[in-house]
């Protein structure tokens, strides 16, 4: 599904990532973990097209997507969420998810402004679909609320609903459990599993080890910019290097 090979990233002389390679299977949940400063978020920013790597390639379903900007990746089926949730805070919850369907609709500037007949149909389809995703994320009762007024946990669910509305094949989540209470984290785990069961590949960066070990099919461990280990949750837990890296960090 996703092949990451030989990714190296250098910021002004500092090597943030060094020759990182791994591959991700279809319809799996993969966790990327590692101590602070391991380069997890940098890796995500490269895969999702926000940074361009110094060297190495990212291949999505056989297609080289290295260096493509985020807006080109969404139509190819890759979306992401952010650590400090990025909502469209002045828009309503429903409108946020409707924007998520941008690549699944096509009315242009002039057609919209002149209210051409076909735009009505498309608008209704966007609205219905968006409503369905709100129901999936269990926030449909908040459809009319301005997103900026949402509590953090609901905001997180909204961000996920918006990403799903883009009908992705793969979704990258940057620390989805950050800032959630234990109740909300449990709910999140269910949602992530449901997303996988719909046939969507999930990759997440996460600090909450309990969550990672619980839901992930595979885990990639980064340390100081390099890949330290890769395997099933059980293998990772039994890996001496990983334990040392974490204890050394404490």
């Amino acid at each position, binding site marked *: 599904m996703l092949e990451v090979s030989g990714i190296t990233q250098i*910021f*002004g002389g500092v090597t943030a990532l060094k020759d990182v390679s791994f591959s991700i299977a279809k319809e799996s949940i993969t966790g990327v973990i590692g101590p602070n400063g391991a380069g997890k978020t940098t890796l995500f*920013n490269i895969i999702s097209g*926000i*940074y361009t790597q110094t060297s190495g390639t990212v291949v999505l379903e056989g297609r080289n997507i290295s260096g493509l900007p985020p807006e080109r990746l969404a139509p190819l089926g890759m979306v992401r969420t952010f650590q400090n949730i990025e909502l469209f805070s002045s828009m309503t919850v429903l409108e946020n998810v409707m924007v998520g369907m941008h690549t699944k609709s096509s009315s242009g500037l002039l057609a919209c402004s002149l209210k051409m007949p076909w735009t009505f149909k498309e608008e209704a389809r966007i609205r219905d679909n968006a409503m369905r995703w709100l129901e999936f994320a269990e926030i449909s009762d908040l459809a009319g609320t301005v997103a900026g007024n949402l509590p953090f946990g609901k905001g997180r669910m909204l961000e996920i609903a918006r990403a799903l509305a883009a009908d992705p094949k793969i979704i990258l989540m940057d620390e989805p459990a950050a800032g959630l209470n234990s109740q909300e984290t449990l709910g999140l785990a269910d949602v992530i599993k449901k997303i996988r069961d719909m046939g969507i590949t999930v990759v997440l960066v996460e600090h909450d080890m309990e969550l990672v070990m619980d839901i992930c099919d595979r885990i990639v461990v980064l340390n100081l910019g390099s890949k330290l280990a890769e395997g099933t949750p059980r293998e990772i837990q039994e890996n001496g290097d990983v334990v040392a890296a974490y204890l050394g960090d404490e």
Partner: protein
Amino acid sequence: MQLDQILQFALSGLSTGAIYALIGIGFSIIYNSTGIINFAQGEFVMLGGMLTLFFIGLLQLPLWAAIPCAVLVCTLAGMLFERLAIRPLRKPTPINLVIITIGGSIFIRGLSMLLWGKDTHSLPSFSGDEPITIANATILPQHLWILGITLVIIGANKFFFYHTISGKAMRACSYNSRAAGLVGIDVRRMVLFSFVISSAMGAMAGIIVAPLTMTSYDVGIMLGLKGFCAAIIGGMSSGIATVIGGLILGILESLGAGLISSGYKDAIAFIILLLILFIRPQGLFGKAESERV
């Protein structure tokens, strides 16, 4: 085109360039400590010249006494502006800051027009108008004053930023204001300081240029924008790069006015401004920085 003439244009361009450099450094100091581009910067330049005239005319002060008074009042105005308009802003988004500083700028301009009318005035030269001949070109004593005072201010500025505690604290804020706050630097005071320094420098620039170019309530926009252009060429540095930016702009303008057309002289600065912003937004001498999310 004769070599003499080019020399003449270059010489007069040098002194206007020095003025642009002073104004540009004012922009950079505020930008580096706050991330704000102060659209009102030019108005402090205007205030410098107008206030000096005011003190000479109304209070019958001699020039040497009127100048410090004008700088002082300008500095106070700069402090007030920061305290009343910038600091209380609840949502300091770039757009809000642009609108606030533009609002402040035309407010100051309007107030000056009410106080002093729409006429242009001239300030007496600091030491006579007898031209001095260098090679085959002539310059006025005021040109020398401008170059000399600019050098002194830039030197003092350098000393302040590198050899005093406050100056070092301000530099720390410009690198990383959160970290500076954590080690006990009062960041808000440093922001106020940056407004103090740049309004004083702006005022001084306005005073030394007024004997050459005349002054009126509306000279602030153009001078301000050209100072900004100098700062952009210099990559928003508060040091030598902006000085060079100012001098390049001054000389190009002066040559352009002489060789092409004086009407389009003002356009030169803006064309350079756009070109630099489009092609090298980090300035002529800076290195590209990777954009962070």
